[in-house]
């Protein structure tokens, strides 16, 4: 009966508690990392930090939170097998043109999807691949002495810094897209990342 209660109230479970908790750890970490990272690349006072030292501290705290929450999320995805809902499959790719037609206002009929649409799946997978790149390049910049072998692979600290920045720019673009679609597409689904139910 307890499991029926939310359903009777019209609620459909969407995000388990652990996924929500981890989301609210890595989402602020990514945003703090982006803001402090852009300040560290080009330190201008208008970017919200008074000095480099405070931006660095923010960046490093965000880095640790992101690493821990990302690893925990990967662990959760593996054991609950919810990666099957996130990774784009053949059907998603085949349905991509129909999805794009709707999103580009070329079609009126909204396609139905089980949990995530192909765009979301590509976006989440993209973030899932970019975050490890950010972590690896970021750690090598953070501890260039201890992780010099990673620096050798990148061809030097300069190219490594460039890849870290470019990956950061890509994470920024994907995060902005994610926030926009989450806020405007279906506010019910947005609610579910707080409550667990849509």
């Amino acid at each position, binding site marked *: 009966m307890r499991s*029926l209660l939310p*359903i*009777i*109230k*019209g*609620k*459909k479970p969407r995000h388990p508690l652990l996924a929500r908790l981890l989301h609210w750890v890595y989402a602020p970490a990514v945003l703090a990392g982006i803001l402090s990272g*852009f300040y560290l*690349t*080009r*330190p201008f*006072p208008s970017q919200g*930090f*008074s*000095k*480099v*030292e405070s931006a660095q501290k923010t960046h490093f705290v965000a880095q640790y939170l992101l690493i821990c929450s990302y690893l925990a999320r990967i662990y959760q995805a593996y054991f609950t097998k919810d990666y099957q809902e996130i990774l784009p499959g053949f059907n998603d790719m085949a349905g991509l043109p129909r999805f794009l037609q709707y*999103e580009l*206002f070329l079609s009126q009929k909204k396609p139905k999807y089980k949990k995530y649409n192909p765009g979301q799946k590509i976006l989440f997978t993209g973030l899932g691949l970019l975050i490890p790149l950010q972590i690896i390049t970021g750690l090598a910049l953070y501890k*260039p*002495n201890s992780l*010099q*072998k990673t*620096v*050798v692979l990148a*061809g*030097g*600290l*300069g*190219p490594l*810094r*460039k890849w870290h*920045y*470019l990956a950061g*720019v*890509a994470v*920024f*673009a994907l995060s*902005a*897209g994610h926030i*926009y679609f989450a806020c*405007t*597409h*279906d*506010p*019910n689904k947005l609610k579910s990342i707080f409550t667990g139910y*849509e």
Partner: protein
Amino acid sequence: MPIRIGTEPLRPGKLSRSAPPLIWLGTNTCGGDAVSFLNSLDPGYLDLLRDLADCRYLYLTMTAEGDMATRILDEMLTTLPGKYILVVEGTIPTRSNGLYSVVGMRNGEPLTALQAVRELGTKARYVVAVGTCAAFGGPFAAMPNPSGSLPVQAVLDRQVINVPGCPVNPDWMMGTLVHLIRFGEPELDSFNRPKLFYGETIHNLCQRRHYFDNSLFAKQPGEPWCMYQIGCKGPDTFADCPYRQWNGEHLSWPVKANTPCIGCVNPEFPDGNAPFFEHLPDVRLPGVRVTADRVGALTAAATVLGIGVHLAGSILTGRLAHAFKQTFSGSGARTRLLQNLIQRFSKKR
């Protein structure tokens, strides 16, 4: 009559018996590393000649030339294999069988740098690549690299000790040589550079580090603040320039002279860390070269534009209003309630 270099006479016979033979080959190089090395203060070049090494061949200062010079190289191969130290200054051109750099003639045929380095390098006790060109390719292997130049390590199947710098600091080279002669191989980092000189970043050793931490930046060269915003490569560069300093007598270094560090000891120098007055290196795609900042600005503009256009489209077509209406009117919840109940009971059956 004793030979004179500077004011001190060079006395023959004073050389220690343990002093290893030294060959300093110049390949594709500007000669800057050898000139810089001659400025070493303590020990100086004279000390090297008299006490430290049996300097048999140094392309810039030796009086021998032609067959006489080439004969020295041949003698080293036949009489002293495994005993001499080979120092290579410059890149090794590989195009046209290495004919873009010829170090002498042998039996009427050109002796290419490629051939000389391979032959001498195989039988040397230690091989030292001096300067960024020899160590990593540097300016002589920069795009478009018409001579197909490579660093020393790329043409030798053995360990090469890299002592980069453009030019090398006299202390770095003399220190490495003295370490090799007196104590053996120094501790090396992952780029095979002696940690003694390349163990910490310029940024961490910089006298202006506190300006960086407190966001006090120079807007143009000549200002006495942190050079980070005008492209200083100190954070990416492992070298002890800030406290060792330059010009033989340890007088100054780029940041002290109010210009940014250009990261001349780095493996990516110069192609991989240019432009020197930008914080990040350029992004190179086939046929396109664009600054990293521009990539960032274009991506941000595309993101904002994409979101803006989609938002406008959603408002104009009424999709946005529909989504919010459905959520807050309650009809959405009722529909979902029915859907969920149907789903639930159909599963049970």
